[in-house]
């Protein structure tokens, strides 16, 4: 026990004197959590509160285009900035560059005329189906073309582009619906549709009910902090590979290791000491990042972190995650022959395991084989356990299903470490 205690003291002192290592283990993850949460939070705010600028070149002189612009404004996602009527498609592209706008639409000169014809056509069909006489006036025939063109920057993320597309479609449907309704009303009643009736029929403004389904039945809506802090805490814990694998390689390749091999103490003591020391580091990382989420985030305008109700489950999940991270780092360290190998492989492999594990792309969005592959990443099981605790209000019994695979992966890492040290005649 004395040997282990002295070895832990030695490892702690070396760790504390490695300022770069401490920077990598504590400061960098903190910066990462703050930056990622802030950016994601501002993105959500962009969608929820702020509006994306949309350049509009309206070549049409009719009412339908004005109604369309009004409807776009009411969708709430976009802020319309008008462009001169005579802009060519090339001018619109240039304007997007000049004004740093990601989106623009060009409404053609015959937009109102087309929408009118389309509405009349729909109204006629409806009248026919009611058994009434449709309007017999001949209207100009139009080729089936998109009613207007949306220009977008490739920088715009696909998910955001789809949101914009569905917003514009809703606005267009509103315009077309109004026009059809007016035509129908006129055909039946031979007078204009009263504005109050039109508003009542078109602007129902029915809000969708939102209920967050958690295990506790709580109604709290998840926020960016609840998503990001647990995820990036796991990433930070696994990122100690940069310091720990380097420490193992450094000890292995330095003169000190030759002496350790000649002393009457098994190298297992050194391995156990490293595991205890660095497990302490991972727990401290989690404590620091969670505390930051709770106390610092609200001060800088980010949503505060709410700890799970089952703190015992949180501690157990964190300890197993930390132990798994430490085991993985040591495993890489015992195989690597240089620090560059250990750090290079370690860093890249953690990013890959993070992607596989759903830290960067949610696991539920992965298809078929990829979802199976994600089960191989220890970060996946850690993340699922944390999400169960932080987002679903789960208890220890709920997260066991995630902690058991994580524990098994950890034991596999330990076995590989043991076999490699044995093969190298180090234990």
């Amino acid at each position, binding site marked *: 026990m004395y040997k282990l205690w002295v070895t832990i003291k030695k490892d702690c002192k070396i760790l504390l004197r490695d300022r770069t290592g401490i920077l990598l283990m504590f400061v960098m993850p903190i910066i990462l959590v703050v930056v990622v949460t802030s950016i994601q939070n501002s993105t959500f705010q962009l969608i929820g509160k702020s509006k994306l600028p949309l350049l509009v070149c309206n070549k049409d002189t009719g009412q339908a285009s004005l109604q369309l612009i009004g409807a776009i404004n009411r969708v709430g996602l976009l802020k319309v900035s008008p462009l001169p009527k005579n802009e060519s498609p090339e001018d619109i592209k240039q304007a997007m560059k000049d004004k740093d706008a990601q989106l623009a639409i060009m409404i053609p000169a015959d937009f109102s005329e087309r929408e009118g014809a389309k509405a009349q056509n729909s109204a006629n069909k409806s009248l026919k189906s009611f058994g009434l006489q449709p309007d017999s006036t001949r209207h100009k025939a139009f080729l089936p073309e998109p009613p207007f063109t949306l220009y977008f920057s490739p920088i715009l993320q696909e998910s955001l582009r789809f949101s914009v597309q569905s917003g514009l479609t809703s606005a267009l449907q509103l315009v077309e619906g109004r026009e059809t309704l007016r035509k129908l009303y006129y055909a039946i009643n031979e007078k204009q549709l009263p504005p109050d009736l039109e508003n009542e029929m078109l602007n129902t403004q029915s809000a969708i009910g939102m209920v967050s389904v958690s295990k506790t039945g709580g109604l709290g809506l998840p926020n960016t902090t609840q998503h990001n802090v647990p995820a990036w805490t796991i990433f930070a814990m696994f990122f100690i590979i940069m310091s720990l694998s380097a420490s193992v390689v450094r000890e292995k390749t330095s003169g000190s290791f030759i002496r350790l091999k000649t002393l009457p103490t098994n190298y297992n003591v050194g391995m156990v000491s490293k595991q205890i020391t660095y497990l302490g580091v991972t727990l401290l990382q989690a404590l620091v990042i969670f505390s930051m989420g709770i106390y610092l985030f609200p001060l800088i305008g980010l949503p505060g972190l709410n700890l799970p109700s089952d703190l015992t489950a949180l501690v157990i999940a964190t300890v197993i995650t930390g132990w798994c991270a430490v085991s993985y780092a040591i495993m890489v360290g015992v195989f690597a022959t240089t620090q560059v190998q250990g750090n290079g492989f370690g860093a890249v492999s953690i990013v890959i395991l993070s992607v596989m594990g759903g830290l960067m792309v949610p696991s539920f969005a992965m298809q078929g084989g990829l979802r199976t592959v994600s089960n191989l990443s220890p970060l996946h099981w850690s993340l699922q356990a944390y999400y169960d605790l932080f987002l679903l209000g789960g208890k220890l019994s709920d997260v066991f299903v995630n902690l058991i695979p994580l524990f098994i992966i950890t034991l596999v890492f330990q076995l590989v470490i043991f076999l490699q040290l044995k093969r190298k*005649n180090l234990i």
Partner: protein
Amino acid sequence: MAVSVEHLDFRYPGSEDVLLSGLNLAIAKGESFGLFGPNGAGKTTLMNLMTGVLKPSAGEISLLGHKMGGSGKKVNRLFGFVPQDFSFYRELSAVENLEFYGAWAGLDSKRTKKRTAELLSILGLEDVKDKEVGKFSGGMKRRINLAIGVIHNPSILFLDEPTVGVDVQTRHAIISYLKELNDNGTTLIYTSHQLSEAETLCRQMALIDSGKIIAEGTLEELSKKYKKKSLEELFISLTGKEFRD
């Protein structure tokens, strides 16, 4: 016997090059034994085999009657090793290094503290005992390297070029201390390219070349047999003047 080496062969796994072949060596208890040879002759390899850093391909090594490579590491309590490369944690102070290596050598806290104080005093490191060893001068690093090797008062001390790259004062201090240890019964097994230094320290010696012992005995015996006045002349006559590395 302090050290017994029988029919020792060594080559690195997967390599065809035999570094040591059929080597036999016997070193008596309390001896001060020098192992000399040109670069690449196999001195360090033999030292690493005798200390268990490497495993022999064939043959047997015993220290004070205990077979090396047997079960457990009890035999490792019997010897100390001062490798040619600095073997300590550069980030730790002299005291912290001695505390750690003392524990790993099997000493308890009290004995480690006592030996640490003694060694720091003997080797003139008291004033820098709390300074990070990485910031030591070359001579101080050699002295702490030696202190760690003897922290547990070993019966046999293996020294691989313990005075390389040090000034006259440090060399004198190290050699004096080694003589004192030998006078008190510690068996010394020593390699060096400093042949004049070796003449003053070693009673028995062996010349090794191309993985084989080519001459063995006291300096007097070897001088008489090969009709050479000094160890250096003997060395050149037996190993030639060609570069070996």
